């Protein structure tokens, strides 16, 4: 346990940082910027959904991911898309699943994962999450580290995860580009890439960069901020040069200019409230918005500011104390962020953990309970948005997934009971309408790593 704690601490130090930048203004839903695959170039998604069957789930309790909880509802999907959500739906002669006593939610989305870049087993030879060789490595892409055989994906799938965002670590001021993946095992990374999902840029505040680079700098928080600003000035210069010399290539600045052009979303690992405010100022100085602050243990202290600026906060329910900037915790953090400015805040439960990603519903339950204890009137439906709609919004994929609405990807989880109960399990998980996991028949993907290595198989 001791060794484990140390490993966990190391993991947090090494890669516990998320950033999110905001292309998002607090605009009404549905008007979120539509992203192109331009920034992905030749690395664009080649994802193809698994074969699926037109299906209706009957008579379930349905969380739509939009804040609602409906009793005795049906969910109809075909050709990978949601057709209709409602009561007593009239459909043709298609597959029916009895949802009586079951709960249905959108596929769960984790916008902070290091699966693939810190795969299991955790050995040096596949520890590929942190290019900790320079404080600015905006040029690296997490997708070029992802190991498609990581045996952790299916464990997350059993917890209802249909989409996850893989970020580089937090050693650097600019850690590189993150990538959004469908939770589908494949032999190449592009086959897992969420079609049309924008890249992210991972940035990190505070203790990590200044500790990792203490000898060469930055070694202080003010050094960190100077480092961000210098890099953005470099990006502005690069953009000017492109006007004269459009064919000029500069990997680092291509990522940064992608942010300034609104095509890449900033995901910013930042624990302290005062630093979040500073990072928002830097965005104003250079003309970009932070999409999401990650880890923000102190987000509740600037909840109004985050709501005003339309910045999401991706948070743990209860992690704290592993470093100084994670000391001022409250388990009501997520609820306070959510309820800021008359409930216009954007709160997200994230994992940053291959263990936590398996139970994001339980993490949401703890955050909901703490919010209610703090006096907020928060419904289960609202809390469900923390692990569905809001992370989808944060990743720029809300027009495709995150809620159960007509025309969206049929990313759906059927739970054995209320997902806010510790005793409930994901029973069936559909990705683009295809059954990807079925607890009853032990149907799940197995990566090559699982083959032969195991002396013992799950029952």
């Amino acid at each position, binding site marked *: 346990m001791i060794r484990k704690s140390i490993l966990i601490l190391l993991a947090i130090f090494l890669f516990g940082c998320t950033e999110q930048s905001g292309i998002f203004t607090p605009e009404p839903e549905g008007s979120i910027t539509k992203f192109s695959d331009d920034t992905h170039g030749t690395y664009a998604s080649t994802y193809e959904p698994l074969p699926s069957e037109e299906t209706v789930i009957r008579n379930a309790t349905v969380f739509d991911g939009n804040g609602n909880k409906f009793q005795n509802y049906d969910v109809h999907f075909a050709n990978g898309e949601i057709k209709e959500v409602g009561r007593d739906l009239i459909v043709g002669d298609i597959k029916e699943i009895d949802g009586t006593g079951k709960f249905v939610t959108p596929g769960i989305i984790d916008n902070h994962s290091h699966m693939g870049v810190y795969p299991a087993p955790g050995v040096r030879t596949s520890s590929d999450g942190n290019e900790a060789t320079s404080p600015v490595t905006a040029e690296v892409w997490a997708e070029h580290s992802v190991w498609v055989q990581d045996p952790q994906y299916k464990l997350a799938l059993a917890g209802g995860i249909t989409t996850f965002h893989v970020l580089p670590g937090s050693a650097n001021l600019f850690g590189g580009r993150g990538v959004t993946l469908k939770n589908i095992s494949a032999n190449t990374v592009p086959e897992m890439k969420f079609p049309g999902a924008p890249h992210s840029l991972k940035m990190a505040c505070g203790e990590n960069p200044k500790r990792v680079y203490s000898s060469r700098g930055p070694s202080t928080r003010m050094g960190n901020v100077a480092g961000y600003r210098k890099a953005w000035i470099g990006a502005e210069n690069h953009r000017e040069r492109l006007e004269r010399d459009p064919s000029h290539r500069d990997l680092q600045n291509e990522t940064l200019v992608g942010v300034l052009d609104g095509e890449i979303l900033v995901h910013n690992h930042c624990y302290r409230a005062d630093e979040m405010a500073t990072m928002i100022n830097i965005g104003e100085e250079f003309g970009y918005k932070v999409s999401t602050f990650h880890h923000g243990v102190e987000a509740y202290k600037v909840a109004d500011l985050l709501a005003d600026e339309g910045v999401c906060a991706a948070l743990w329910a209860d992690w*704290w104390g592993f470093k100084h900037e994670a000391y001022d915790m409250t388990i009501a953090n997520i609820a*306070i962020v959510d309820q800021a400015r008359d409930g216009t805040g954007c709160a997200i439960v994230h994992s940053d953990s291959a263990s936590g990603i398996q139970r994001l519903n339980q993490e949401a339950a703890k955050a909901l309970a703490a919010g209610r204890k703090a006096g907020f009137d928060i419904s289960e439906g609202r809390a469900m948005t923390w692990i569905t709609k809001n992370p989808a919004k944060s990743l720029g994929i809300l027009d495709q997934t995150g809620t159960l609405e007509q025309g969206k990807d049929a990313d759906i989880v059927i739970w054995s009971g209320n997902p806010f109960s510790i005793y409930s399990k994901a029973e069936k998980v559909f990705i683009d309408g295809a059954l990807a996991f079925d607890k009853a028949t032990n149907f799940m993907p197995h990566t090559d790593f699982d083959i032969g290595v195991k002396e013992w198989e799950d029952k």
Partner: protein
Amino acid sequence: MKYIKYLLLLSFLVAADADDMIVIKNGNVFVDGEGFVKKDILVDEGKILLVEDMIGNVGASTIINAQGKYVMPGLIVFSQLGLLEIGALSETNDSSSDIYNAGFDPTSAYNPFSQAVRLNRSKGVTSTVHVPGASGYFRGLLGFTKINDGYKQKKQGPLGLVTRYGQSRNDSRAAELMFMEDLFALTRGRADEKKGYESDNIQFFFGTNNEYKFTKRDFDAISKVLNKEIPLVVEVNKATDILNVIKFGQTQNIDLVLWGAHEAHMVADEIARAGISVVLDPLDNIPGSFDSLNATYENVTRLDDAGVEMAFYYSQGAGSHNAYLAHQSAGNAVAMGLDYNEAIRAITSNPASIFGLVDVGSVAPGYDADLAIWDGDPLELMSNVETVLIDGKVEDLSNRYEELTKRYTEDRDKPNSYRSR
């Protein structure tokens, strides 16, 4: 028997003043062997006096109405609570030692005013088993402390000597076994030759770079294992390693407890036959190392089927700071198929029985009144702890997290620095 107790109670009531007695009425009380049943509890002088169907008010000064509530033993967690305030700041970390290893007992470093202690108390924890983290060959000795408010805490221990086996060491597993055999033989020899043992304070060094150092204090701790005063607690995951450890324990004629034990389910029958208990986190299902390739959620159910006694800790996320989440580990174990009452025991009475703790971990007459009263099923994450008693005293459950919450949700017309503290 019952009637003798009532006679005793009657004589007690006549003789003593009932002012500081507490009655907890109408709660669903967790009773060993029965599960949650409707009972009243009479507490006096820090002890549970009676657990019966109907206890009157008997002149008690405090009556707690637990109608609809769940009363269970306070959680006994395995943690660095009170030894570690901020993980990354070594100046706030007293859970490790470079000077001593086997002989290192962190108990005296315990800080009752740690914010982590306050949080965990408010979440239904009443005591902690101190998990040591010495940097030498052994981790050190397990201690035990109640986590009540104030300067004085009841302590027990040492409870066990912690070491590790497997890939966590650099040398071959074979060499590690040889070293343990040699070290134990040396310790026995020193104990036999009283003279040398008493007089020297010489440090013995082992390892290719003399990295392993042993002082008299360290040898004394190893002797406690050899004398069967305490078990050797071995952090080990790989199934074949577990078999080696069991064999080693039998050859050395010592008591063992397994810790971590990700692949224990593969050798569950062997563990059961050797009468060895296991301390683990049911949530450890990731093949996170080559020693844990067969990690699975089914570890607990398979060990339980084989009849192995288990205690649970929570090692995910923030670890020790949230040691109370052992109840989340236990709840998930139930979701995986473990019997509900067994899961409760794994975070209350089993830690006590595995490590020989006296008078804690159960709601029964004669036990310390270390109790938590929950507003719902204690394994559900949306249930709240309402009242905690440690040694019969109703504890202050205030904590920094709720104080910070208030600061940012109340009195918001004032500048935040001038709000409540």
